[in-house]
Protein backbone atom coordinates (compact mmCIF):
# COMPACT_ATOMS: atom_id res chain seq x y z
CA UNK A 1 0.00 0.00 0.00
CA UNK A 2 2.66 2.46 1.07
CA UNK A 3 4.21 2.47 -2.36
CA UNK A 4 1.17 4.26 -3.80
CA UNK A 5 1.69 7.41 -1.79
CA UNK A 6 4.57 9.77 -2.40
CA UNK A 7 6.33 11.80 0.29
CA UNK A 8 4.55 14.95 -0.94
CA UNK A 9 1.18 13.30 -0.52
CA UNK A 10 1.98 12.44 3.10
CA UNK A 11 2.72 16.09 3.81
CA UNK A 12 -0.57 16.98 2.14
CA UNK A 13 -2.40 14.48 4.36
CA UNK A 14 -0.74 16.00 7.44
CA UNK A 15 -1.89 19.48 6.41
CA UNK A 16 -5.42 18.21 5.85
CA UNK A 17 -5.55 16.54 9.24
CA UNK A 18 -4.94 19.96 10.81
CA UNK A 19 -7.47 21.71 8.52
CA UNK A 20 -9.99 18.91 9.10
CA UNK A 21 -9.67 19.28 12.87
CA UNK A 22 -10.21 23.03 12.53
CA UNK A 23 -13.22 22.27 10.35
CA UNK A 24 -14.96 20.12 12.96
CA UNK A 25 -13.92 22.44 15.79
CA UNK A 26 -17.31 24.24 16.00
CA UNK A 27 -19.06 20.89 16.43
CA UNK A 28 -16.49 19.81 19.04
CA UNK A 29 -17.07 23.09 20.88
CA UNK A 30 -20.80 22.31 21.03
CA UNK A 31 -20.09 18.83 22.41
CA UNK A 32 -17.67 20.15 25.06
CA UNK A 33 -20.02 22.90 26.23
CA UNK A 34 -23.05 20.68 26.40
CA UNK A 35 -21.43 18.92 29.36
CA UNK A 36 -20.47 22.10 31.22
CA UNK A 37 -22.28 24.32 33.70
CA UNK A 38 -23.69 27.61 32.49
CA UNK A 39 -21.10 29.63 34.41
CA UNK A 40 -18.26 27.60 32.89
CA UNK A 41 -19.53 28.18 29.34
CA UNK A 42 -19.72 31.90 30.02
CA UNK A 43 -16.23 32.00 31.50
CA UNK A 44 -14.35 30.11 28.78
CA UNK A 45 -16.22 28.31 26.03
CA UNK A 46 -13.09 26.56 24.75
CA UNK A 47 -11.98 24.94 28.01
CA UNK A 48 -12.57 21.26 28.57
CA UNK A 49 -14.91 20.41 31.44
CA UNK A 50 -13.13 19.91 34.76
CA UNK A 51 -14.32 18.03 37.83
CA UNK A 52 -16.13 21.13 39.10
CA UNK A 53 -17.69 22.18 35.79
CA UNK A 54 -18.69 18.76 34.44
CA UNK A 55 -22.43 18.20 34.73
CA UNK A 56 -22.91 14.82 33.08
CA UNK A 57 -26.22 14.58 31.30
CA UNK A 58 -27.93 17.20 33.47
CA UNK A 59 -27.91 19.72 30.63
CA UNK A 60 -29.68 17.28 28.32
CA UNK A 61 -32.39 16.44 30.84
CA UNK A 62 -32.82 20.10 31.76
CA UNK A 63 -32.88 21.26 28.13
CA UNK A 64 -35.42 18.68 27.04
CA UNK A 65 -37.93 19.65 29.71
CA UNK A 66 -37.02 23.33 30.17
CA UNK A 67 -39.73 26.01 30.34
CA UNK A 68 -43.41 25.89 29.52
CA UNK A 69 -42.66 24.61 26.03
CA UNK A 70 -40.40 21.54 26.43
CA UNK A 71 -37.97 20.75 23.64
CA UNK A 72 -39.19 17.20 23.07
CA UNK A 73 -42.46 18.63 21.74
CA UNK A 74 -40.57 20.62 19.09
CA UNK A 75 -38.60 17.50 18.16
CA UNK A 76 -41.85 15.59 17.69
CA UNK A 77 -43.42 18.28 15.52
CA UNK A 78 -40.22 18.64 13.46
CA UNK A 79 -40.12 14.90 12.84
CA UNK A 80 -43.79 14.71 11.90
CA UNK A 81 -43.72 17.76 9.60
CA UNK A 82 -40.56 16.55 7.84
CA UNK A 83 -41.81 13.00 7.24
CA UNK A 84 -45.36 14.00 6.26
CA UNK A 85 -44.30 16.85 3.96
CA UNK A 86 -41.64 14.79 2.20
CA UNK A 87 -44.06 11.89 1.68
CA UNK A 88 -46.77 14.20 0.38
CA UNK A 89 -44.36 16.00 -1.97
CA UNK A 90 -42.97 12.73 -3.34
CA UNK A 91 -46.40 11.23 -4.07
CA UNK A 92 -48.07 14.43 -5.29
CA UNK A 93 -45.30 15.68 -7.56
CA UNK A 94 -44.35 12.30 -9.06
CA UNK A 95 -48.00 11.75 -10.06
CA UNK A 96 -48.30 15.25 -11.49
CA UNK A 97 -44.99 14.91 -13.33
CA UNK A 98 -46.19 11.70 -15.00
CA UNK A 99 -49.47 13.36 -15.96
CA UNK A 100 -47.66 16.44 -17.32
CA UNK A 101 -45.21 14.50 -19.49
CA UNK A 102 -47.70 11.92 -20.79
CA UNK A 103 -50.72 14.14 -21.45
CA UNK A 104 -48.74 17.03 -22.91
CA UNK A 105 -51.71 19.40 -23.36
CA UNK A 106 -51.55 23.20 -23.38
CA UNK A 107 -52.80 23.22 -19.80
CA UNK A 108 -50.23 20.75 -18.52
CA UNK A 109 -47.47 22.68 -20.30
CA UNK A 110 -48.67 25.91 -18.72
CA UNK A 111 -48.59 24.28 -15.29
CA UNK A 112 -45.08 22.99 -15.94
CA UNK A 113 -43.80 26.44 -16.90
CA UNK A 114 -45.41 27.92 -13.79
CA UNK A 115 -43.53 25.30 -11.76
CA UNK A 116 -40.25 26.31 -13.40
CA UNK A 117 -41.09 29.92 -12.69
CA UNK A 118 -41.75 29.20 -9.01
CA UNK A 119 -38.18 27.95 -8.68
CA UNK A 120 -36.71 31.43 -9.19
CA UNK A 121 -39.05 33.16 -6.72
CA UNK A 122 -37.44 33.76 -3.31
CA UNK A 123 -39.53 33.02 -0.24
CA UNK A 124 -39.51 36.66 0.91
CA UNK A 125 -41.66 37.52 -2.11
CA UNK A 126 -44.57 35.42 -0.87
CA UNK A 127 -43.93 35.20 2.88
CA UNK A 128 -46.52 37.73 4.01
CA UNK A 129 -49.31 36.67 1.67
CA UNK A 130 -48.57 32.97 2.13
CA UNK A 131 -48.88 33.21 5.90
CA UNK A 132 -52.14 35.14 5.68
CA UNK A 133 -53.53 32.69 3.09
CA UNK A 134 -52.53 29.73 5.24
CA UNK A 135 -54.09 31.41 8.28
CA UNK A 136 -57.43 32.05 6.61
CA UNK A 137 -57.58 28.47 5.27
CA UNK A 138 -56.72 27.12 8.76
CA UNK A 139 -53.53 25.49 7.51
CA UNK A 140 -51.61 26.70 10.57
CA UNK A 141 -51.15 23.33 12.30
CA UNK A 142 -48.46 20.64 11.91
CA UNK A 143 -51.14 18.35 10.46
CA UNK A 144 -51.94 20.71 7.59
CA UNK A 145 -48.60 22.47 6.95
CA UNK A 146 -47.52 19.66 4.55
CA UNK A 147 -50.09 21.12 2.12
CA UNK A 148 -48.22 24.45 2.20
CA UNK A 149 -44.90 22.64 1.72
CA UNK A 150 -46.27 20.74 -1.27
CA UNK A 151 -47.54 24.00 -2.76
CA UNK A 152 -44.35 26.02 -2.31
CA UNK A 153 -41.95 23.13 -2.96
CA UNK A 154 -43.72 21.59 -5.97
CA UNK A 155 -41.61 23.45 -8.55
CA UNK A 156 -38.20 21.82 -8.07
CA UNK A 157 -39.65 18.35 -7.43
CA UNK A 158 -41.84 18.42 -10.55
CA UNK A 159 -38.90 19.74 -12.59
CA UNK A 160 -36.71 16.85 -11.45
CA UNK A 161 -39.40 14.20 -11.98
CA UNK A 162 -40.42 15.44 -15.42
CA UNK A 163 -36.79 15.35 -16.51
CA UNK A 164 -36.61 11.70 -15.56
CA UNK A 165 -40.05 10.55 -16.78
CA UNK A 166 -39.22 11.88 -20.25
CA UNK A 167 -36.35 9.38 -20.47
CA UNK A 168 -38.57 6.36 -19.71
CA UNK A 169 -39.56 4.52 -22.93
CA UNK A 170 -43.31 4.55 -23.62
CA UNK A 171 -43.40 0.86 -24.59
CA UNK A 172 -43.34 -0.38 -21.00
CA UNK A 173 -46.40 1.65 -20.07
CA UNK A 174 -48.14 0.66 -23.30
CA UNK A 175 -47.65 -3.00 -22.45
CA UNK A 176 -49.25 -2.35 -19.06
CA UNK A 177 -52.22 -0.57 -20.66
CA UNK A 178 -52.70 -3.38 -23.19
CA UNK A 179 -52.59 -5.88 -20.32
CA UNK A 180 -55.57 -4.01 -18.86
CA UNK A 181 -53.99 -1.81 -16.19
CA UNK A 182 -55.83 1.41 -15.36
CA UNK A 183 -53.62 4.52 -14.95
CA UNK A 184 -53.46 4.13 -11.17
CA UNK A 185 -52.07 0.62 -11.46
CA UNK A 186 -49.81 1.54 -14.36
CA UNK A 187 -48.37 4.36 -12.29
CA UNK A 188 -47.92 2.58 -8.97
CA UNK A 189 -46.73 -0.80 -10.19
CA UNK A 190 -44.90 0.13 -13.40
CA UNK A 191 -43.78 3.77 -13.40
CA UNK A 192 -43.11 4.34 -9.69
CA UNK A 193 -40.49 1.57 -9.31
CA UNK A 194 -38.57 3.06 -12.24
CA UNK A 195 -38.62 6.50 -10.58
CA UNK A 196 -36.70 5.23 -7.54
CA UNK A 197 -33.36 7.04 -8.15
CA UNK A 198 -35.09 10.39 -8.63
CA UNK A 199 -37.35 9.64 -5.64
CA UNK A 200 -34.23 9.32 -3.46
CA UNK A 201 -32.67 12.54 -4.79
CA UNK A 202 -35.89 14.54 -4.37
CA UNK A 203 -36.54 12.91 -0.98
CA UNK A 204 -33.10 13.89 0.34
CA UNK A 205 -33.52 17.48 -0.85
CA UNK A 206 -36.97 17.83 0.70
CA UNK A 207 -35.88 16.26 4.00
CA UNK A 208 -32.93 18.65 4.28
CA UNK A 209 -35.12 21.61 3.36
CA UNK A 210 -38.06 20.92 5.67
CA UNK A 211 -36.00 19.76 8.66
CA UNK A 212 -33.82 22.90 8.61
CA UNK A 213 -36.49 25.36 7.47
CA UNK A 214 -37.09 28.23 9.84
CA UNK A 215 -39.08 31.04 8.27
CA UNK A 216 -41.96 29.14 6.61
CA UNK A 217 -43.09 27.23 9.73
CA UNK A 218 -42.38 30.32 11.86
CA UNK A 219 -44.81 32.38 9.78
CA UNK A 220 -47.38 29.69 9.03
CA UNK A 221 -47.69 27.74 12.28
CA UNK A 222 -49.69 28.94 15.26
CA UNK A 223 -46.60 29.53 17.43
CA UNK A 224 -48.45 29.60 20.72
CA UNK A 225 -49.17 25.90 20.24
CA UNK A 226 -46.57 24.53 17.83
CA UNK A 227 -42.82 24.95 17.40
CA UNK A 228 -40.20 23.14 15.34
CA UNK A 229 -36.53 22.68 16.31
CA UNK A 230 -35.19 25.74 14.38
CA UNK A 231 -37.99 27.93 15.79
CA UNK A 232 -37.27 26.67 19.29
CA UNK A 233 -33.53 27.35 18.97
CA UNK A 234 -34.08 30.85 17.61
CA UNK A 235 -36.54 31.41 20.46
CA UNK A 236 -33.86 30.41 22.97
CA UNK A 237 -31.39 32.81 21.34
CA UNK A 238 -33.94 35.59 21.63
CA UNK A 239 -33.82 35.17 25.38
CA UNK A 240 -30.00 34.99 25.38
CA UNK A 241 -28.53 35.28 28.86
CA UNK A 242 -31.74 34.41 30.59
CA UNK A 243 -31.41 30.83 29.43
CA UNK A 244 -28.84 28.25 30.40
CA UNK A 245 -26.08 28.23 27.76
CA UNK A 246 -24.94 24.71 28.69
CA UNK A 247 -28.47 23.42 28.28
CA UNK A 248 -28.86 25.22 24.96
CA UNK A 249 -25.66 23.63 23.66
CA UNK A 250 -27.04 20.26 24.72
CA UNK A 251 -30.19 20.97 22.68
CA UNK A 252 -28.14 22.02 19.66
CA UNK A 253 -26.15 18.81 19.94
CA UNK A 254 -29.39 16.80 20.12
CA UNK A 255 -30.70 18.56 17.03
CA UNK A 256 -27.59 17.93 14.91
CA UNK A 257 -27.02 14.30 15.94
CA UNK A 258 -29.90 13.00 13.76
CA UNK A 259 -28.59 15.03 10.80
CA UNK A 260 -25.06 13.65 11.20
CA UNK A 261 -26.30 10.06 11.61
CA UNK A 262 -28.52 10.50 8.54
CA UNK A 263 -25.54 11.92 6.63
CA UNK A 264 -23.11 9.19 7.58
CA UNK A 265 -25.57 6.40 6.75
CA UNK A 266 -26.70 7.64 3.35
CA UNK A 267 -23.79 9.86 2.37
CA UNK A 268 -23.74 8.73 -1.26
CA UNK A 269 -27.43 9.49 -1.83
CA UNK A 270 -27.21 12.81 -0.01
CA UNK A 271 -24.26 14.10 -2.01
CA UNK A 272 -25.96 12.98 -5.23
CA UNK A 273 -29.29 14.48 -4.26
CA UNK A 274 -27.86 17.77 -3.09
CA UNK A 275 -25.78 18.07 -6.26
CA UNK A 276 -28.90 17.37 -8.36
CA UNK A 277 -30.61 20.28 -6.62
CA UNK A 278 -27.81 22.60 -7.75
CA UNK A 279 -29.93 23.54 -10.75
CA UNK A 280 -32.23 25.49 -8.47
CA UNK A 281 -31.61 29.22 -8.89
Amino acid at each position, binding site marked *: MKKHYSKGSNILTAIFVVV*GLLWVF*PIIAVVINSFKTNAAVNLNAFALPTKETFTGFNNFVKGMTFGNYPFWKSVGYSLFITVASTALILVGTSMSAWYISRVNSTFSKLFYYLCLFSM*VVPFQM*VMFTLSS*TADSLKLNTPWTIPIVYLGFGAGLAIFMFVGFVKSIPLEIEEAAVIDGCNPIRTFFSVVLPMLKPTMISVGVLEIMWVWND*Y*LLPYLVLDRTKYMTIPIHIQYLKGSYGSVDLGATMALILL*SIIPVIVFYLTCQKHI*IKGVAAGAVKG
Partner: protein
Amino acid sequence: MKEKKHHDPSILSSELIRRPIRRWFPVFLLPTLICFCIGFLWPFAQGIYLSFCNFSTPRDATWVGVSNYVKAFKDAGFIHAFKNTALFAIVSIVLINVLAFTIAYALTQRMRGANIFRTIFFMPNLIGGVVLGYIWSMIFDAILKHYSTYLTANATYGFWGLVILVAWQQIGYMMIIYIAGLQAVPEDMLEAAKIDGASKSQTLFRVVIPNVMPSITICMFLTLTNSFKLFDQNLALTGGAPSVIINHAKVNMTELLALNIYSTYNINKNWHGAAQAKAVVFFILVATLAIAQLTATRKKEVQQ
Protein backbone atom coordinates in the same frame (compact mmCIF):
# COMPACT_ATOMS: atom_id res chain seq x y z
CA MET B 1 -60.08 10.35 -39.65
CA LYS B 2 -60.10 8.31 -36.49
CA GLU B 3 -59.41 5.09 -38.38
CA LYS B 4 -56.44 6.70 -40.09
CA LYS B 5 -54.98 7.81 -36.75
CA HIS B 6 -55.13 4.29 -35.40
CA HIS B 7 -53.03 3.03 -38.26
CA ASP B 8 -50.20 5.41 -37.54
CA PRO B 9 -48.16 3.60 -34.86
CA SER B 10 -46.55 6.72 -33.36
CA ILE B 11 -49.89 8.42 -32.71
CA LEU B 12 -51.39 5.20 -31.45
CA SER B 13 -48.62 4.80 -28.93
CA SER B 14 -49.07 8.16 -27.26
CA GLU B 15 -52.88 8.13 -27.50
CA LEU B 16 -53.01 4.70 -25.89
CA ILE B 17 -51.59 6.07 -22.67
CA ARG B 18 -52.72 9.63 -22.99
CA ARG B 19 -56.47 9.16 -23.13
CA PRO B 20 -56.95 7.06 -19.98
CA ILE B 21 -54.62 9.30 -17.93
CA ARG B 22 -56.56 12.36 -18.97
CA ARG B 23 -59.70 10.96 -17.41
CA TRP B 24 -57.83 10.58 -14.12
CA PHE B 25 -56.95 14.27 -13.96
CA PRO B 26 -58.69 14.73 -10.55
CA VAL B 27 -56.42 12.06 -9.04
CA PHE B 28 -53.08 12.78 -10.71
CA LEU B 29 -52.90 16.53 -11.11
CA LEU B 30 -55.71 18.29 -9.26
CA PRO B 31 -54.49 17.84 -5.63
CA THR B 32 -51.00 19.16 -6.40
CA LEU B 33 -52.48 21.92 -8.54
CA ILE B 34 -54.71 23.11 -5.68
CA CYS B 35 -51.77 23.06 -3.25
CA PHE B 36 -49.63 24.93 -5.79
CA CYS B 37 -52.30 27.63 -6.02
CA ILE B 38 -52.53 27.91 -2.22
CA GLY B 39 -48.79 27.70 -1.55
CA PHE B 40 -47.44 29.69 -4.48
CA LEU B 41 -49.65 31.08 -7.22
CA TRP B 42 -52.20 33.00 -5.17
CA PRO B 43 -49.67 34.37 -2.63
CA PHE B 44 -47.42 35.46 -5.51
CA ALA B 45 -50.19 37.27 -7.41
CA GLN B 46 -51.49 38.84 -4.21
CA GLY B 47 -47.94 39.87 -3.31
CA ILE B 48 -47.57 41.78 -6.58
CA TYR B 49 -50.94 43.47 -6.07
CA LEU B 50 -50.27 44.39 -2.44
CA SER B 51 -46.97 46.06 -3.33
CA PHE B 52 -49.11 48.82 -4.85
CA CYS B 53 -51.36 49.09 -1.77
CA ASN B 54 -51.49 50.37 1.77
CA PHE B 55 -52.51 47.54 4.08
CA SER B 56 -52.24 45.93 7.46
CA THR B 57 -53.98 42.72 6.36
CA PRO B 58 -54.78 41.74 2.73
CA ARG B 59 -58.47 42.54 3.38
CA ASP B 60 -58.07 46.25 4.13
CA ALA B 61 -55.81 47.04 1.17
CA THR B 62 -56.22 50.42 -0.57
CA TRP B 63 -54.52 51.20 -3.89
CA VAL B 64 -51.72 53.78 -3.60
CA GLY B 65 -49.82 53.27 -6.87
CA VAL B 66 -46.02 53.29 -6.86
CA SER B 67 -45.60 55.24 -3.61
CA ASN B 68 -44.48 52.06 -1.79
CA TYR B 69 -41.62 51.68 -4.23
CA VAL B 70 -40.61 55.32 -3.76
CA LYS B 71 -40.68 54.81 0.01
CA ALA B 72 -38.62 51.62 -0.30
CA PHE B 73 -35.88 53.26 -2.33
CA LYS B 74 -35.78 56.27 -0.01
CA ASP B 75 -35.25 53.97 2.97
CA ALA B 76 -31.59 54.24 4.05
CA GLY B 77 -31.79 50.75 5.58
CA PHE B 78 -32.73 49.18 2.24
CA ILE B 79 -29.95 50.94 0.36
CA HIS B 80 -27.47 49.95 3.05
CA ALA B 81 -28.68 46.33 2.94
CA PHE B 82 -28.28 46.31 -0.83
CA LYS B 83 -24.68 47.59 -0.67
CA ASN B 84 -23.96 45.20 2.19
CA THR B 85 -25.34 42.25 0.19
CA ALA B 86 -23.32 43.18 -2.90
CA LEU B 87 -20.10 43.46 -0.86
CA PHE B 88 -20.90 40.24 0.97
CA ALA B 89 -21.55 38.46 -2.33
CA ILE B 90 -18.21 39.57 -3.84
CA VAL B 91 -16.20 38.57 -0.76
CA SER B 92 -17.88 35.20 -0.36
CA ILE B 93 -17.75 34.34 -4.07
CA VAL B 94 -13.97 34.84 -4.12
CA LEU B 95 -13.27 33.23 -0.77
CA ILE B 96 -15.55 30.20 -1.16
CA ASN B 97 -14.57 29.38 -4.72
CA VAL B 98 -10.82 29.75 -4.25
CA LEU B 99 -10.84 27.59 -1.11
CA ALA B 100 -13.31 25.04 -2.47
CA PHE B 101 -11.29 24.62 -5.66
CA THR B 102 -8.00 24.31 -3.76
CA ILE B 103 -9.44 21.65 -1.47
CA ALA B 104 -11.04 19.77 -4.37
CA TYR B 105 -7.76 19.88 -6.32
CA ALA B 106 -5.81 18.53 -3.36
CA LEU B 107 -8.35 15.80 -2.68
CA THR B 108 -8.28 14.57 -6.28
CA GLN B 109 -4.52 14.04 -6.09
CA ARG B 110 -3.35 10.66 -4.89
CA MET B 111 -3.75 11.15 -1.17
CA ARG B 112 -4.35 9.17 1.99
CA GLY B 113 -7.75 9.70 3.61
CA ALA B 114 -9.22 11.80 0.78
CA ASN B 115 -12.68 10.28 1.30
CA ILE B 116 -12.72 11.02 5.02
CA PHE B 117 -11.74 14.64 4.39
CA ARG B 118 -14.45 14.96 1.76
CA THR B 119 -17.02 13.70 4.27
CA ILE B 120 -15.81 16.18 6.91
CA PHE B 121 -15.78 19.21 4.61
CA PHE B 122 -19.27 18.55 3.30
CA MET B 123 -20.87 18.02 6.71
CA PRO B 124 -21.62 21.64 7.75
CA ASN B 125 -23.80 21.94 4.67
CA LEU B 126 -26.46 19.77 6.27
CA ILE B 127 -26.88 21.79 9.45
CA GLY B 128 -29.67 24.37 9.38
CA GLY B 129 -28.86 28.09 9.18
CA VAL B 130 -30.41 28.97 12.53
CA VAL B 131 -28.42 26.31 14.39
CA LEU B 132 -25.23 27.39 12.57
CA GLY B 133 -25.86 30.97 13.60
CA TYR B 134 -26.21 30.01 17.24
CA ILE B 135 -23.06 27.85 17.22
CA TRP B 136 -20.92 30.53 15.61
CA SER B 137 -22.24 33.37 17.73
CA MET B 138 -21.11 31.38 20.77
CA ILE B 139 -17.66 30.85 19.23
CA PHE B 140 -17.17 34.46 18.10
CA ASP B 141 -18.33 35.80 21.45
CA ALA B 142 -15.91 33.49 23.23
CA ILE B 143 -13.02 34.70 21.07
CA LEU B 144 -13.94 38.39 21.26
CA LYS B 145 -14.25 38.14 25.04
CA HIS B 146 -10.43 38.05 25.19
CA TYR B 147 -10.47 41.55 23.70
CA SER B 148 -13.32 42.55 26.05
CA THR B 149 -15.83 43.09 23.25
CA TYR B 150 -18.61 41.06 21.62
CA LEU B 151 -19.93 40.12 18.18
CA THR B 152 -22.74 42.66 17.84
CA ALA B 153 -20.64 45.56 19.15
CA ASN B 154 -19.24 46.39 15.72
CA ALA B 155 -20.68 45.91 12.22
CA THR B 156 -17.26 44.80 10.92
CA TYR B 157 -17.23 41.82 13.30
CA GLY B 158 -20.74 40.87 12.22
CA PHE B 159 -19.90 41.13 8.52
CA TRP B 160 -16.75 39.00 8.68
CA GLY B 161 -18.42 36.63 11.12
CA LEU B 162 -21.12 35.99 8.56
CA VAL B 163 -18.50 35.53 5.83
CA ILE B 164 -16.68 32.89 7.93
CA LEU B 165 -19.94 31.12 8.81
CA VAL B 166 -21.16 30.97 5.22
CA ALA B 167 -17.74 29.91 3.91
CA TRP B 168 -17.65 27.11 6.49
CA GLN B 169 -21.10 26.00 5.38
CA GLN B 170 -20.75 26.23 1.61
CA ILE B 171 -17.14 25.30 0.82
CA GLY B 172 -17.98 21.60 1.14
CA TYR B 173 -20.85 21.92 -1.30
CA MET B 174 -18.83 23.72 -3.97
CA MET B 175 -15.97 21.27 -3.34
CA ILE B 176 -18.28 18.40 -4.38
CA ILE B 177 -19.10 20.13 -7.67
CA TYR B 178 -15.40 20.90 -8.31
CA ILE B 179 -14.39 17.30 -7.52
CA ALA B 180 -16.92 16.04 -10.09
CA GLY B 181 -15.52 18.51 -12.62
CA LEU B 182 -11.90 17.61 -11.89
CA GLN B 183 -12.60 13.89 -12.20
CA ALA B 184 -14.07 14.48 -15.64
CA VAL B 185 -10.84 16.02 -16.99
CA PRO B 186 -9.68 13.52 -19.67
CA GLU B 187 -6.76 11.35 -18.47
CA ASP B 188 -5.04 11.40 -21.88
CA MET B 189 -4.87 15.21 -21.84
CA LEU B 190 -3.07 15.14 -18.50
CA GLU B 191 -0.75 12.44 -19.77
CA ALA B 192 0.01 14.37 -22.95
CA ALA B 193 0.91 17.42 -20.84
CA LYS B 194 3.20 15.26 -18.71
CA ILE B 195 4.93 13.80 -21.75
CA ASP B 196 5.41 17.28 -23.20
CA GLY B 197 7.20 18.17 -19.98
CA ALA B 198 4.67 20.63 -18.56
CA SER B 199 5.24 21.62 -14.94
CA LYS B 200 2.54 21.08 -12.30
CA SER B 201 1.43 24.70 -12.38
CA GLN B 202 1.45 24.77 -16.19
CA THR B 203 -0.78 21.69 -16.22
CA LEU B 204 -3.11 23.29 -13.67
CA PHE B 205 -3.54 26.60 -15.47
CA ARG B 206 -3.35 25.45 -19.10
CA VAL B 207 -5.11 22.07 -18.94
CA VAL B 208 -7.10 21.56 -15.75
CA ILE B 209 -8.72 24.95 -15.22
CA PRO B 210 -9.95 25.39 -18.83
CA ASN B 211 -11.50 21.94 -18.57
CA VAL B 212 -13.39 22.66 -15.36
CA MET B 213 -14.73 26.04 -16.54
CA PRO B 214 -18.34 24.74 -16.55
CA SER B 215 -18.04 23.79 -12.85
CA ILE B 216 -16.51 27.18 -12.09
CA THR B 217 -19.44 28.96 -13.78
CA ILE B 218 -21.98 26.89 -11.84
CA CYS B 219 -20.25 27.47 -8.51
CA MET B 220 -19.83 31.21 -9.08
CA PHE B 221 -23.53 31.61 -9.77
CA LEU B 222 -24.54 29.34 -6.90
CA THR B 223 -22.48 31.35 -4.41
CA LEU B 224 -23.88 34.56 -5.92
CA THR B 225 -27.55 33.54 -5.59
CA ASN B 226 -26.93 31.95 -2.19
CA SER B 227 -25.42 35.21 -0.92
CA PHE B 228 -28.39 37.20 -2.18
CA LYS B 229 -30.96 34.86 -0.66
CA LEU B 230 -29.16 34.42 2.67
CA PHE B 231 -31.57 34.80 5.57
CA ASP B 232 -31.47 32.24 8.41
CA GLN B 233 -27.75 32.63 9.10
CA ASN B 234 -28.01 36.41 9.04
CA LEU B 235 -30.97 36.39 11.43
CA ALA B 236 -29.42 33.91 13.85
CA LEU B 237 -25.88 35.32 13.93
CA THR B 238 -26.45 39.04 14.47
CA GLY B 239 -30.09 39.69 13.60
CA GLY B 240 -28.89 42.88 11.89
CA ALA B 241 -27.32 44.39 15.03
CA PRO B 242 -25.80 46.87 15.71
CA SER B 243 -28.08 49.62 14.47
CA VAL B 244 -27.43 53.32 14.02
CA ILE B 245 -29.64 56.32 13.20
CA ILE B 246 -29.09 57.83 9.73
CA ASN B 247 -31.37 60.74 8.69
CA HIS B 248 -33.87 59.94 11.48
CA ALA B 249 -34.18 56.33 10.28
CA LYS B 250 -32.88 53.27 12.07
CA VAL B 251 -30.38 51.31 9.97
CA ASN B 252 -29.36 47.80 10.97
CA MET B 253 -25.70 47.66 10.03
CA THR B 254 -25.25 43.92 9.39
CA GLU B 255 -28.55 43.34 7.62
CA LEU B 256 -28.63 41.73 4.17
CA LEU B 257 -31.55 42.23 1.74
CA ALA B 258 -33.74 39.27 2.75
CA LEU B 259 -33.51 40.13 6.43
CA ASN B 260 -34.15 43.81 5.71
CA ILE B 261 -37.45 42.91 4.00
CA TYR B 262 -38.42 40.79 6.96
CA SER B 263 -37.59 43.42 9.55
CA THR B 264 -39.38 46.11 7.53
CA TYR B 265 -42.61 44.11 7.94
CA ASN B 266 -42.06 44.08 11.66
CA ILE B 267 -41.65 47.86 12.11
CA ASN B 268 -45.39 48.53 12.02
CA LYS B 269 -48.36 48.31 9.64
CA ASN B 270 -47.47 51.56 7.85
CA TRP B 271 -44.43 49.75 6.49
CA HIS B 272 -46.21 46.62 5.18
CA GLY B 273 -46.67 48.11 1.71
CA ALA B 274 -43.04 49.24 1.44
CA ALA B 275 -41.85 45.82 2.68
CA GLN B 276 -43.89 44.09 -0.03
CA ALA B 277 -42.48 46.52 -2.64
CA LYS B 278 -38.96 45.66 -1.45
CA ALA B 279 -39.88 41.98 -1.78
CA VAL B 280 -40.90 42.51 -5.42
CA VAL B 281 -37.63 44.33 -6.17
CA PHE B 282 -35.78 41.50 -4.43
CA PHE B 283 -37.69 38.91 -6.48
CA ILE B 284 -36.78 40.63 -9.76
CA LEU B 285 -33.12 40.76 -8.71
CA VAL B 286 -32.94 37.08 -7.71
CA ALA B 287 -34.91 35.90 -10.76
CA THR B 288 -32.59 37.86 -13.08
CA LEU B 289 -29.52 36.28 -11.48
CA ALA B 290 -31.08 32.81 -11.75
CA ILE B 291 -31.97 33.25 -15.42
CA ALA B 292 -28.48 34.61 -16.16
CA GLN B 293 -27.08 31.52 -14.47
CA LEU B 294 -29.25 29.25 -16.59
CA THR B 295 -28.26 30.87 -19.87
CA ALA B 296 -24.57 30.91 -18.94
CA THR B 297 -24.52 27.21 -18.02
CA ARG B 298 -26.62 26.24 -21.06
CA LYS B 299 -24.13 27.98 -23.38
CA LYS B 300 -21.27 26.04 -21.80
CA GLU B 301 -23.14 22.78 -22.35
CA VAL B 302 -23.57 23.50 -26.03
CA GLN B 303 -19.89 24.24 -26.44
CA GLN B 304 -18.85 20.88 -25.05
